[in-house]
């Protein structure tokens, strides 16, 4: 039997060996912590503290700004220094609550649950919502919204995404290896919400040690199974994952729920576990600090609000001046021009590269080789879409299904002429989406 997979995709150098062997190291922040109010998709959170207030670890400092939104919690104890504009990873500025760390780490009291027995579904969702849990794979979609589909009884699969197909990233790997019981515990909470669903823990075949650990743990869980996926990028993209495990196709106008699926990333499921069972909010995450420019690449458990530059110091600093620093993985992460940005709920990695492939490889003409078509998991013709988008031909772009692009980057990666295909398509998509919102 072949491994579960999808059609298309690429096999980039994975770079995971740099950081995968070392255990997760917990690190403490410096004096100043910065909590952006927008760490998720949806309305920014509204600050509920003022300058001069003393806050404790786990205290809510901003409340959800709507249903599709999530609260933000302090990860240290200290004093609020103010609410000001701070830079985020994409280079934009957003409101942020700045807290001065008093290094006491005094915690608020949490309300843990002894067991899920007799707990109401609404109560579980409430705990997840109050815990500020959002999708930690990168998009940051509020998890309580995802877990509240119109018809919960029609949900057939809860997919825990442990594919970790982005090169270099090993945070999910370490998490599954070190705390597999939290993953299973979180999945148990989610399955409690969907009576007719099965839970699949989906792991790529390059992490067989995790598969073994998980299989051991789900032995006595009748509703859970471990699914082994072929190692290929973008196996962990939501649509690819749903197709690989259930053979259902989800397009851009559908939600996973339309296919009876709920997909949550490994660390999100862990956050669900902590929020539901321990009552503690999301205020820490694992960040992979890696790349050939880093002296001691490894994974760190970091409090949200910490500064990126401080984490790099913890990893031994730079071997020599990197040419490029990426927040996230190399396929979908953001290039940073300033390290003075805070860790958010969605910061998965800091990748520091000595050499920038993009600048080193000049663009030339398309030779029609078809590598972009072969690699496209959305079954599009990226070279044509990029041309339409360069010509600003919105009509053709839409007709040729440009909106189905998931921006995974496979086409740009595989192009021998080094054309920025994903980038062109992305800018057209953004323009069209912005115009739609205006109407």
């Amino acid at each position, binding site marked *: 039997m072949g491994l579960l997979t999808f059609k298309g995709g*690429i096999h980039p150098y994975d770079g995971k060996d740099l950081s995968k062997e070392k255990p997760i190291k917990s690190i403490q922040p410096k004096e100043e912590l910065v909590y952006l109010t927008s760490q998720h998709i949806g309305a920014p959170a509204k600050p509920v503290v003022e300058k001069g207030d003393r806050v404790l670890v786990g205290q809510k400092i901003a409340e959800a700004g709507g249903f599709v939104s999530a609260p933000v919690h302090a990860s240290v104890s200290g004093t609020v220094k103010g609410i000001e504009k701070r830079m985020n990873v994409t280079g934009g500025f957003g409101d942020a609550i700045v807290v001065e760390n008093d290094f006491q780490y005094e915690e608020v009291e949490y309300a843990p649950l002894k067991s899920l027995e007799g707990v109401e579904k609404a109560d579980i969702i409430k705990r997840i919502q109050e815990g500020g849990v959002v999708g930690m794979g990168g998009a940051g979609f509020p998890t309580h919204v995802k877990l509240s589909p119109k018809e919960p009884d029609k949900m057939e699969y809860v997919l825990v995404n442990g594919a970790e197909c982005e090169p270099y990233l090993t945070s999910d790997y370490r998490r599954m290896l070190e705390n597999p019981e939290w993953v299973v515990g979180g999945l148990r909470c989610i399955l409690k919400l969907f009576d007719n669903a099965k839970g699949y823990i989906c792991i790529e075949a390059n992490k067989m040690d995790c598969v073994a650990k998980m299989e051991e743990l789900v032995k006595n869980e009748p509703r859970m199974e471990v699914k082994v996926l072929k190692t290929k990028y973008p196996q962990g993209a939501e649509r690819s994952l749903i197709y690989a495990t259930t053979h259902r196709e989800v397009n851009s106008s559908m939600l996973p729920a*339309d296919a009876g699926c709920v997909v949550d990333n490994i660390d999100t499921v862990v956050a669900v576990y902590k929020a539901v069972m321990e009552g503690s909010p999301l205020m820490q995450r694992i960040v992979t600090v890696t790349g050939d420019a880093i002296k001691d690449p490894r994974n760190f458990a970091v409090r949200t609000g910490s500064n990126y530059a401080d984490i790099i110091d913890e990893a031994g600093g730079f071997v020599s001046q990197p040419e490029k620093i990426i927040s996230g993985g190399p396929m979908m992460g953001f*290039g940073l021009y300033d*390290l003075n940005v805070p860790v958010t709920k969605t910061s998965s990695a800091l990748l520091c590269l000595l050499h*920038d492939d*993009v600048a080193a490889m000049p663009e*030339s003409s398309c030779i029609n080789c078809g590598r972009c078509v072969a690699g496209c998991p959305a079954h599009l*013709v990226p070279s044509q879409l990029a041309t339409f988008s360069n010509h600003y031909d919105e009509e053709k772009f839409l007709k040729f299904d440009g909106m189905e692009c998931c921006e995974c980057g496979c086409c740009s990666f595989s192009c*021998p*002429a080094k054309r920025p295909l994903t980038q062109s398509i992305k800018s057209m998509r953004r323009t069209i989406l912005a115009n739609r919102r205006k109407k």
Partner: protein
Amino acid sequence: MSEMLHVSSSPHIRSKVTTQSLMFMVVIALLPASCFGIYNFGLHALLIIAVTIASCLVTEFVYEYFMHKTITISDGSAVVTGLLLALNMPPSIPWWIPVLGGVFAILIVKQLFGGIGQNIMNPALAGRCFLLISFTGHMTNFAVPAGAFGHVVDTVSGATPLAAVKAGEAVNLTSMFFGNTAGTIGETSVVAILAGAILLVGFEVIDLRVPLTYIGSFAILVVIYGLAVGKGFDMNFLAAQLCGGGLMLGAFFMATDYVTTPITKTGQLAYGVILGLLTWLFRMFGNSAEGVSYAIIFSNLLVPLIERVMRPVAFGKGGKKA
């Protein structure tokens, strides 16, 4: 931060494969056929190969230099065009004819249409067809191989195996497979071409979709036609058709030219079938025993249409509904 960091939109990594590396691998894959051609037809074949490649490179350089365009000769595509054109030349051809062909291929077929990636026909084949029409005598005068780097005497010429088959004569299939027969420099040895094809597939330069549908549909048509006209199933005839002429060289090295092949997978299948059909038509009903070159450049012209009609269905927009 002391120095500036590079910032760009994702993805931030690129595969090692470049246009240049692909062209280089095609040249490597053509080496078995080229070497065999030189061995078979003597050093004049080497001269032809050298001057044709030089002609293509010089033409490209001169045009781009005077048109103030980026010089692209280092991408290797002109070398591939020159080499393919040379391999399509009869071994005893005067050297200036392929030089002219190279100028035509690069200047008219490639550069005037916009350079690499924009040509609507395979430049090497279009160059060959141009020469075939202009210098029919020289282009159809096939020397008998001297073997082991011997000199080809211009006066000793003979029919290609395919022409012999067309005339109803018997041919030696073994020598057709190994290549010591009359023909163009690079087309005679099936075994050398297949060795190159294995390299191409191994280097992941091409996949077998186009070559197999091409050769497959051609073979099926030959068999069906044989049965339909009452000749029965003639294995020797089929084998001679497959090994003879430019079919193998065309199917693996020229029908797979990226620029003039549909970009979509279903399109490539359709393209292969059209190639098989046209080659069969030209070979069975045409005046010449050959048909591959015309079949390929004619099909090249259909590529934009094929690409338009045969698009893949976007994921989630068809097939199994959730």
